[in-house]
C-alpha cells in the first residue's frame, strides 16, 4: 500500500502531465505483477463495489474519532468527500506506513469484506485504519467506498504503461479494452511483447469526434466529407467472431445482455465482423428521447414491459473488421462501402452538395430527435481516441432559458465548501417553480461571487440546502426537454448548465413556465 499511496500522492500533488506519467512509469517499473495489475485497474477508473453502505463508514469513523454524528456531518460538509473526511478524523496510526502490498489489501481484506457480518466488517475497518498512515488511509477509504479517482486520463496511463513495458500504446489499449481482470496473468498478457493476440471478445478502442468550432466551410471541399446525423444514444461496438456476439459500450462495459434486439440482429452478421454505431431507443420509425433509453441502461436483463416500451436498435455507421480483417487503416469510404452490403440498420449518408446543405441538415436535427450532424473525412482511417481533424461533430445550439437562483448546496471535491450546486426556478404566476439544477458553467471568479451572495442571502436551510433570496438570474442552456410528472415543474431538461450570469436582468425578467413548456413543441 505504501508505494501505491505514494503514487497517488505524487499524482495528486502535481498538475504537470509529464510528472504524472513519470510517477506512474516509476511505479509500474518497481511493482510486482499483481500490484501492477491492480494499479492499472484502479488508475483506469475501474472500481470495486463497496462492501457496505457508506453510512456504516460514517458511523465507524465517527466512533473511532469519538465525535457525535452531527459533527461528522459538519466535517463532511466542509471536506466534501467521505473517504477523506474519515481519513482526517480517525486517530493517528500506530505505524509509519504499511509495507503490505496493494494486492494483499485488496484481495485479502477489501474483497472478503463483502461476505462478512457487519460486526466483523467494522472490526476489520477499524483495525485497518490503525495500520495505515494518513495518505494511505485516504487511498484505502477511496478504494473501500468505490470512489477512487485520480484525475489521470486513460491516455496518460497508457503512455506510462508503454514507457514502463515497451509495448506500444495501441496494443495496450486494445488489450485493455473490455472486461480486463486485474490478475498477474492478465498483467503478463498485457505486457507481452508477442502482439498478435486479439481475443475473440475484444473491441477496438473507439475513435471519437471533436466538436467543430466555427464555420464548416473551413473543412474545405464538402465532397470530401461524409455527412451523417449525430445520434443521441449509447455508442457501442458489436462484435461477431467465431460463433460469438459481444456488445461493448464506449465505457468499456460489456452490455451484450442488455440489448437482446441488437444481439439478435448481430447474429445475422458474418463471422469476423465488428460494427461501430449508436444504440438508440427506436419506435415507429423514430428515435426516442435519450431519457427513455436511459431506463434501459441500468437493467442487466430487461423485462417484457420495458422492451415493448423502449425497443432498441443499433444504428451502424462504421465497420472496423470484416472477414476477420482489421479495416481500421483503410479509408472510411471503403469501410462504408462494405458496411452498406451488410444486414444492418445503416446510419444514412445525408445528401449535401454544399456547406449550405449541411447547415440546413443540421438545422433539421431537433425535429428528428438528433443532436446535430457528424462530418467524417471520407479518406480517413479509423483512429484511436479523440484526435482532431477527421471526425467532427457539429451540434445544434442548445435551448436556453433565463432562470432565477433559488436554492444552493455545497459542492464536492475541488469545490468542497463552496456553494456550487444550484437550483433554478422560473415564474409560475407569482411563484418561482424549480425547473433545473446546474453545477457547471461558471468561472472560478463567478463561483466565488455567487458563493458570497449565497452566504449573505440565505433565508432558510433544509439540511444542506440553502434557500436564497431570489435575485440572481442565469441563462440556463440545455440539450433536451421532456414532460415529467416526477418534477414539480412538470418538465425535465437534459444537460442543464449555466451559460451566462445575466447581471443585466432582475428576477422579474426571468422566463415563465409557459415559455419553457412552449419549447416542448419545437
Amino acid at each position, binding site marked *: 500500500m505504501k508505494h501505491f499511496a505514494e503514487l497517488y500522492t505524487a499524482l495528486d500533488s502535481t498538475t504537470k502531465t509529464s510528472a504524472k506519467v513519470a510517477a506512474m512509469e516509476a511505479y509500474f517499473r518497481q511493482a510486482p505483477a499483481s500490484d501492477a495489475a491492480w494499479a492499472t485497474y484502479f488508475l483506469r477508473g475501474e472500481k470495486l463495489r463497496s462492501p457496505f453502505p457508506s453510512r456504516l463508514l460514517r458511523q465507524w469513523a465517527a466512533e473511532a474519532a469519538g465525535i457525535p454524528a452531527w459533527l461528522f456531518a459538519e466535517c463532511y460538509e466542509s471536506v466534501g468527500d467521505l473517504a477523506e473526511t474519515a481519513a482526517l478524523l480517525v486517530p493517528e496510526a500506530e505505524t509509519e506506513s504499511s509495507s503490505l502490498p496493494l494486492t494483499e489489501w485488496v484481495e485479502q481484506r477489501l474483497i472478503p469484506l463483502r461476505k462478512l457480518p457487519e460486526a466483523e466488517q467494522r472490526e476489520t475497518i477499524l483495525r485497518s485504519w490503525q495500520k495505515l498512515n494518513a495518505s494511505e488511509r485516504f487511498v484505502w477509504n477511496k478504494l473501500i467506498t468505490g470512489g477512487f479517482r485520480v484525475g489521470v486520463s486513460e491516455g496518460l496511463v497508457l503512455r506510462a504503461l508503454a514507457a514502463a513495458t515497451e509495448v506500444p500504446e495501441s496494443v495496450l489499449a486494445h488489450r485493455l479494452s473490455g472486461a480486463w481482470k486485474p490478475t498477474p496473468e492478465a498483467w503478463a498478457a498485457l505486457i507481452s511483447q508477442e502482439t498478435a493476440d486479439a481475443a475473440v471478445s475484444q473491441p477496438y478502442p473507439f475513435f471519437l469526434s471533436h466538436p467543430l468550432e466555427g464555420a464548416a466551410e473551413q473543412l474545405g471541399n464538402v465532397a470530401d466529407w461524409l455527412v451523417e446525423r449525430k445520434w443521441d444514444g449509447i455508442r457501442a461496438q458489436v462484435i461477431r467472431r467465431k460463433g460469438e456476439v459481444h456488445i461493448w459500450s464506449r465505457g468499456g462495459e460489456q452490455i451484450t445482455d442488455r440489448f437482446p434486439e441488437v444481439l439478435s440482429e448481430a447474429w445475422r452478421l458474418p463471422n469476423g465482423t465488428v460494427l461501430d454505431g449508436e444504440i438508440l431507443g427506436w419506435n415507429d420509425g423514430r428515435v426516442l428521447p435519450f431519457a427513455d433509453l436511459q431506463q434501459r441502461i441500468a437493467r442487466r436483463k430487461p423485462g417484457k414491459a420495458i422492451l415493448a416500451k423502449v425497443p432498441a436498435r443499433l444504428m451502424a455507421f462504421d465497420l472496423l473488421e470484416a472477414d476477420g480483417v482489421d479495416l481500421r487503416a483503410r479509408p472510411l469510404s471503403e469501410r462504408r462501402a462494405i458496411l452498406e452490403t451488410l444486414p444492418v440498420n445503416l446510419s444514412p449518408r445525408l445528401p449535401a452538395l454544399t456547406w449550405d446543405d449541411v447547415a440546413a441538415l443540421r438545422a433539421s436535427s431537433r425535429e428528428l430527435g438528433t443532436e446535430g450532424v457528424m462530418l467524417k473525412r471520407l479518406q480517413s482511417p479509423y483512429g484511436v481516441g479523440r484526435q482532431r481533424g477527421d471526425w467532427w461533430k457539429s451540434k445544434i445550439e442548445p435551448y436556453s432559458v433565463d432562470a432565477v437562483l433559488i436554492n444552493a448546496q455545497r459542492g*464536492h*471535491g475541488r469545490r468542497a465548501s463552496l456553494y456550487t450546486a444550484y437550483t433554478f426556478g422560473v415564474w409560475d404566476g407569482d411563484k418561482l417553480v424549480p425547473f433545473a439544477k446546474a453545477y457547471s458553467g461558471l468561472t472560478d471568479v463567478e463561483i466565488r461571487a455567487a458563493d458570497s451572495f449565497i452566504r449573505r442571502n440565505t433565508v432558510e436551510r433544509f439540511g444542506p440546502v440553502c434557500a436564497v433570496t431570489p435575485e440572481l438570474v442565469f441563462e440556463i442552456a440545455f440539450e433536451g426537454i421532456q414532460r415529467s410528472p416526477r418534477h414539480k415543474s412538470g418538465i425535465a431538461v437534459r444537460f442543464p448548465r449555466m451559460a451566462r450570469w445575466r447581471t443585466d436582468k432582475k428576477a422579474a425578467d426571468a422566463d415563465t413556465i409557459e415559455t419553457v413548456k412552449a419549447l416542448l413543441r419545437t
Partner: protein
Amino acid sequence: MPLLELRPAGLYCPPGDFYIDPWKGVDRAIITHGHADHARGGSNSYLCCSDSVAILQTRLGPQASIQGVAYGETVHFSGVNVTLFPAGHIFGAAQVKVESGGYSWVVSGDYKVEPDATCAAFQPVRCHSFVTEATFALPIYRWRPSAEVFSQVNDWWRSNAAEKRASVLYAYSLGKAQRLLSGVDAEIGPIYTHTAVERINEVYRQAGVLLPQTTQALDSDAASYAGSLIVAPPGVEGSTWLRRFGDCSTAIASGWMQVRGQRRRRAVDRGFTLSDHADWPGLLSAIRETGAETIWVTHGSIEPLVRWLNENGWDAKGLATQFTSDEAEAAE
C-alpha cells in the same frame, strides 16, 4: 451593566469605555494583533502589546496614536483592569483580559497553542468568560508538529533546487512568512522575499526575532533565482511579478491545505498545512484551561463549536463579528 457586549462597531466594554479590535473607528481601541481584520484604522487612540506597536504603526500610518504595554502589565480604565497575555498567534499578538469587580473576561483574538520560534508562547489565562476564535473549529483540523511541516518544505525546496528551479512559497506576509523563514533550512540555498514580506522581516529583526538572511526579489533575470526560495504573499499568485522567476514550483502554507479540495482549488504544486490558528484539539485545550464557564465564539466554524461546547457542559454562544477566516487570502 455588562462587562462586555457586542455593538455595531465591535466588542465593547461599557464600564471601561473601550472596544477590542473594533471594525469601525472608535474613541479607544485595544488591538489584539496587527492583522488587517483586527487592526483597523480610524480610531482616536490605540492600545496594544509593546511588541505590536511597530507593526501597527506600519499598518495604520505614522499619525495613529498607539500606546504599547508589556505582556502581564495592567492598565486601568475607570475601574476596569486590562492586562495583555501572549496569544502565540504572531509576534506581539495578545489576549486581552478585562477584569472588574472580581469578574473577568478574556478575549483571545487569534491564537495557537503550538510553540512558534517567532513569538511568545500562548499563555492560558483563568477567567470566568472566554471569547475564542473558531477559524479551524472542526475535528478534521489537527496539525502535525511544525518541525514535520518544515521538513516537508525543506524537501520540496531541496528537490526543486536540485533541478535548478526556483521555489515560490506563498504565505501571509505578517507572521506566517517569518515563521516559515525561521523554520526552513537556510543552507539549501539563497532566500528571496516579496517587498511586503521584507518590510515585516525588518520589523521582526529590529525587535530581536532571529531570521535567516533574505534579499528582496528585485532582479528580473530568472537565472539568478535558480535553486532559491522565494517567500511571497498569496496575493501575488497568478500576477506578472512571478514571471521573473522563470520555471518555478509553487506552494502555499496555510491551515486550509489540510483539505484536499482546498489544495486542488489553488493552482499550486504543493500545499503545506501550517497554521497560526489553533487546531481543534488546541481550541478545546485552550478553552478548558481558562476554566471559563461562558464561551463566546467568533469567526470561523462558529456553529459546530458552540453546539459541541453546549453539549459538553459549557454555556456557549456565537458572536457575529466581522473578522475574516480565510487564512490563505486574508489575515492570518
